[in-house]
């Protein structure tokens, strides 16, 4: 086994070569079904206000504030260590707004570490690939790949707000546990929709049936993982909805190319979302100072099935009345405007950006003030599909969310290795 030996990497080319050697050896282990070392994983992170003016030194400060120590290898490339000095991976600034952390640390401790430094940071967020975004990426992958190749899709929907009767906090907490006990006699029966389906099949087979599956059972809209088959051999690259990408191919070079492909789309999606949604008063070009118009477009999310009043109530209280908020990471003091209608003039409590929302049993409207990161919108869409309505549809202004994603993907070069 060739270790990547992170501490001795001296440049991008060297990094790719070392990780390539590591994953090549690992394929042999996978063939023998004796995986001895963890897979290579990439965590994609969004750098808030990550314009070109954010220098490497500024980036180091951002990470240092979250107790991630980084030492620069070359421009836009760093060795990252945790608070105790343990090497955790290589951070590459892939695009002005997107960082990639490549690591061979085991998944569970790595995710814990990443979550611990991203969660409290208003400057960093995960890359959020909603089910709707995955729907478009699936279409792109289908066109790019040979139809007999195997792919893997995971659909995840947990109706955590849909609970009969009064629910103690512990139950929701229980659902948070990574691996619930398989056979626990004490475990209460909780009746609510909880879907996690993994589908592994040839692209042509899935393509043939996915639309029907979605029409029959809406959780099939909530794609939470998608594998891009590797064109250089077996396996592929598993993209997760929170920006993790696991390499299951024999080429790190190919892995990085796929990551870069999706990142380019995502960055354009962020820009497009912000350009369209940001509300502000803008002065007229022809008569500066005289005319001010409101520009922007609402984000509209509509549910396939209206929420029951008790589900709506639980969602609102769980989201806005907890000490640290809930899954949606929103803050605000709701104004009740009816049995199933509230207005919230609040903020995204992760990135601490203002956000104005109308929630109802039939959907949600978001007004995004100028400067609020587009990631807030994509996290909201991802969470609504995952926890409320997998078949929900989103519109940015008068365009479908999918149309915005598709436009963001137009012309993005796909340059796999091989």
């Amino acid at each position, binding site marked *: 086994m060739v270790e990547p030996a992170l501490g001795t990497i001296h440049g991008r080319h060297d990094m790719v070569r070392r990780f390539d050697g590591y994953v090549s050896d690992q394929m042999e282990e996978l063939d023998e079904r004796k995986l001895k070392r963890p897979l290579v994983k990439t965590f994609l992170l969004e750098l808030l206000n990550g314009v070109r003016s954010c220098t490497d030194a500024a980036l180091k400060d951002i990470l240092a504030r979250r107790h991630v120590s980084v030492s620069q290898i070359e421009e836009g490339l760093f060795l990252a260590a945790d608070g105790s000095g343990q090497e955790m991976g290589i951070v590459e600034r892939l695009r002005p707004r997107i960082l990639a952390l490549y690591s061979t640390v085991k998944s569970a401790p790595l995710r814990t570490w990443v*979550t611990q430094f991203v969660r409290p940071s208003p400057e960093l967020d995960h890359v959020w690939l909603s089910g709707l975004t995955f729907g478009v990426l699936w279409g792109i992958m289908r066109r790019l790949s040979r139809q007999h190749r195997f792919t893997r899709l995971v659909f995840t929907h947990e109706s955590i707000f849909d609970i009969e009767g009064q629910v103690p906090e512990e139950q929701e907490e229980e659902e948070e546990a990574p691996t619930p006990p398989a056979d626990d006699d004490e475990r209460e029966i909780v009746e609510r929709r909880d879907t996690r389906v993994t589908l592994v099949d040839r692209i042509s087979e899935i393509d043939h049936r996915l639309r029907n599956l979605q029409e029959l059972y809406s959780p099939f809209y909530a794609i939470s993982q998608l594998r891009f088959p590797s064109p250089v051999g077996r396996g592929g690259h598993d993209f997760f909805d929170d920006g993790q990408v696991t390499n299951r191919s024999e080429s790190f070079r190919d892995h990085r190319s796929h990551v870069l492909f999706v990142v380019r789309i995502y960055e354009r999606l962020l820009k497009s979302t912000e350009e369209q949604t940001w509300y502000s008063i803008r002065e007229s070009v022809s008569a500066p100072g005289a*005319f001010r118009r*409101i520009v922007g477009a609402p984000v*509209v999310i509509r549910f396939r099935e209206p929420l029951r009043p008790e589900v709506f109530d639980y969602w609102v209280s769980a989201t806005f*009345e907890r000490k640290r908020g809930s899954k949606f990471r929103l*803050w605000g003091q709701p104004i009740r405007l009816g049995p199933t209608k509230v207005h919230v003039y609040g903020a995204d409590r992760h990135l601490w950006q203002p956000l104005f929302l109308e929630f109802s049993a039939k959907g949600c409207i978001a007004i995004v003030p100028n400067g609020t990161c587009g990631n807030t919108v994509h996290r909201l869409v991802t969470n609504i599909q995952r926890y409320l309505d997998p078949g929900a549809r989103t519109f940015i202004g008068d365009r479908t969310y999918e149309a915005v994603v598709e436009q963001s993907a137009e012309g993005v070069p796909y340059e796999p290795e091989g």
Partner: protein
Amino acid sequence: MNPKAEELVRDPLFQVNALLWLAQPLPDEKVFREFGVSPLGIHPLLHMRRFAVHAIAPMLLVPLDVRLAAQNAGIPIQEGARPDVVLSRERDLKFLLVECKASSFGPGPSKSVEQARALMIAAGPRASEVFAEQVKAALLSYELPDSACAGMMGTLARVAEEMHARGLPAGPLSTLGLRSSETEVSVVIDSELAAFLGVQPGAFKFIALEPGDDPRPLYFIPYDPDAQGSAEETAFCRAVLFRRMHASVVAAIGRAFPPTERIFEHGAVLNDAMFGMYGHWDNKASAKHMRDLFKQFMTAIQQSVNSELTGAIAFEPGRGWKVKIGDEDAHEAIIDALTRFSAETLTAQPKPPIELFDVLEDDEPQAPSSN
């Protein structure tokens, strides 16, 4: 009849916000049906006709020679007027000037009539000069409860007739009525406005009403000290304004990196809360009213936070309210105190119990299955 909706169609701030929603880029209802999801309920008629918001409350000055002519004719006219909203359509340079009113007014001498004369000039043959840009067609429309439209139109017609008789270049007139029923609030378009927009005259759904729900959409413009709304509506709008100021303060503190300090002064916070409209307020009394609201709000926040964290917020004359954040623990404590402050009651809310859920939420990520 939805009593709340019946009351709201008379409220100028609801009227302005309704107008802004009518011009928002939103999907047509049939799109929601195609996707099999619940329709939004808001029908953006003006956007569908490709009208967009051109200006909010712009000052439109009456040309000097027209003012002189009016003076010579003994017709009182304002020097300039601010319609609540101006919409325009780029493809044919049509401008729609909308003034919101709770009710109609008579043709006798009044400020409203003087304002109407100035607005009629702005929408008349001299519109390009008034707007300092090319205007191919303009129309003045009064937005008010549907039941008041006929009376309003009678007044406007008489005022316009008098102006025409004296050679003053007044433009065409119309009304945009708001009508409520049990199931919707609709806009009633008269024949003049219908021809201008390219639709049939009549009623068009603006917003569908769910049983028991308040019809108010999210407010773009949350507060207008000049608006003469009901006491309840004024209180509601103040609550929205306070929440938006609260969000502005909480977000700024949330993004801060200790050790640091943040200064909150009225201009920045009010502009943040009003999409930048505060900076353009010409009416000094209104601007002062807004500053007083800001002061009331910040004083309450200061008292609330300082009751738990002594000296965390201090007022500095000439600068504003300073929030000092010493370290990460202090940062977290200030965020906690700020987010528990109620913009409704202007007091602190009790701390919720620490929940196991919260701790896990922040510390234990979900682990997908990969090594």
